[in-house]
């Protein structure tokens, strides 16, 4: 029996993990050998950030900014909003945190889905534009009617904060999964890289492949996650094109970004999805330190060179030819 006990692997046990629901998604933080207190600290930190950023919680800083047009922000909210504005400039507005009035009109905030007509969209698009947001010395202001929603980047930002919290507590190995927004802290305890599946955009629950990473975030955007079907059968996804005010149809159906900063990955996946292949390729040529994996509407894979060694296509994609971007 002693021999048997020695045979047992030191696999991650359920009590090394904490699953909770925040930011409108399910989150699991796994810290091999971590304490209950540490897992609670992670959960508390996410809830604290959610209370600052939530667009629906009337007492949040963002909700107050939207309601009053002006608000003094905490360091965290100012950092996230500032980062989002920088990302908007970098991506030529493909990521735009002022889309909220449009997203709301489509019903994606309440579940009462509808298709706004062209006149309504044109009026709402006048309220969209990241250049309308002013952020100076921690104080933000918006013109009347303009509203900010940090939902597209909050989870990536939160993953960075959790990684910093855990590192500060001496943790060298952890897996942070904030609703499919993944941050791999260090390697697994056995020294091997974390293996992160990339969800197949067909919604089957399968994955197109696995990427091996250490100390990096892996974030994927696809419209299979939230969508609605209109009466005429048209499927509308939840990622919007700020240029049209309609769900993005760029020819990219899934965008994954792998890099050291969860916030940057989160911002870039949304932007690449909206940009389409040509613009996405041009942007990726200029970015260092991040890799990307794109799936187009024909099911072809496009990837940056850093994934040559770390990405293994699987299942329906196991024999797929990959178009290398750089």
């Amino acid at each position, binding site marked *: 029996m002693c021999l*048997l006990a020695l*045979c047992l692997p030191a696999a*991650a046990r*359920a009590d090394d993990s904490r*699953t909770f629901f925040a930011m409108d998604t399910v989150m699991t933080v796994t810290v091999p050998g971590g304490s209950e207190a540490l897992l609670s600290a992670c959960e508390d930190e996410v809830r604290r950030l959610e209370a600052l950023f939530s667009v629906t919680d009337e007492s949040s800083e963002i909700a107050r900014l939207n309601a009053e047009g002006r608000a003094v922000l905490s360091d965290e909210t100012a950092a996230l909003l500032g980062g989002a504005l920088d990302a908007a400039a970098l991506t030529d507005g493909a990521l735009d945190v002022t889309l909220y009035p449009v997203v709301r009109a489509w019903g994606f905030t309440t*579940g009462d889905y509808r298709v706004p007509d062209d006149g309504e969209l044109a009026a709402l698009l006048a309220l969209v534009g990241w250049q309308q947001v002013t952020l100076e010395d921690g104080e933000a202001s918006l013109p009347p009617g303009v509203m900010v929603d940090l939902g597209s980047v909050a989870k990536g930002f939160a993953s960075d904060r959790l990684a910093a919290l855990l590192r500060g507590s001496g943790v060298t190995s952890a*897996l942070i999964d904030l609703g499919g927004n993944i941050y791999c802290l260090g390697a697994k305890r056995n020294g091997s890289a974390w293996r992160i599946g990339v969800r197949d955009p067909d919604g089957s629950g399968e994955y197109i492949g696995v990427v091996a990473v250490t100390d990096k975030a892996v974030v994927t955007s696809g419209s299979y996650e939230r969508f609605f*079907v209109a009466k005429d059968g048209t499927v509308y996804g939840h990622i919007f094109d700020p240029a049209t005010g309609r769900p993005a149809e760029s020819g990219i159906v899934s965008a994954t970004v792998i890099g050291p900063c969860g916030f940057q990955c989160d911002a870039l996946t949304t932007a690449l999805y909206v940009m389409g292949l040509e613009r996405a390729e041009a942007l990726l040529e200029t970015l260092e330190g991040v890799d990307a994996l794109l799936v187009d509407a024909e099911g072809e894979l496009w990837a940056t060179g850093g994934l040559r060694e770390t990405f293994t296509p699987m299942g329906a994609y196991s024999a797929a030819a990959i178009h290398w971007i750089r």
Partner: protein
Amino acid sequence: MKRTFSNRFWAALLAAAFLLCAGAALLLWRTPGARTVARITVDGRVVREIDLTAVTAEASFTVQTPGGVNTVTVRPGGICVSEADCPDHVCVKQGWLEGGAVPIVCLPHRLVISLVSGGDGDAPDAVSG
């Protein structure tokens, strides 16, 4: 002669015991990695997957479907639809899903909750998306 038989007997017994232990070790080896994952689909598309073995306390969340809203509750190892605005409430009446192959189905909302086995050797540590 009698002595030889006895040796063979003990050798066979030892071999059997060893095989039994090896089998048990293999079984135990797999068990810690075995996860119970609940998969929620709407209209055939996966909207959420939850590792029920990682759930430590009861918690609820809503799933918006084109037809309406289902409130899903999870607890360690189990999942159910606790509330729904569908007309028949068949999904709520199905109660907890904690094993077995029969999924929870809400036909009016085209929502299905099924258990999928996790933890096989090739499974990734997490899924992005």
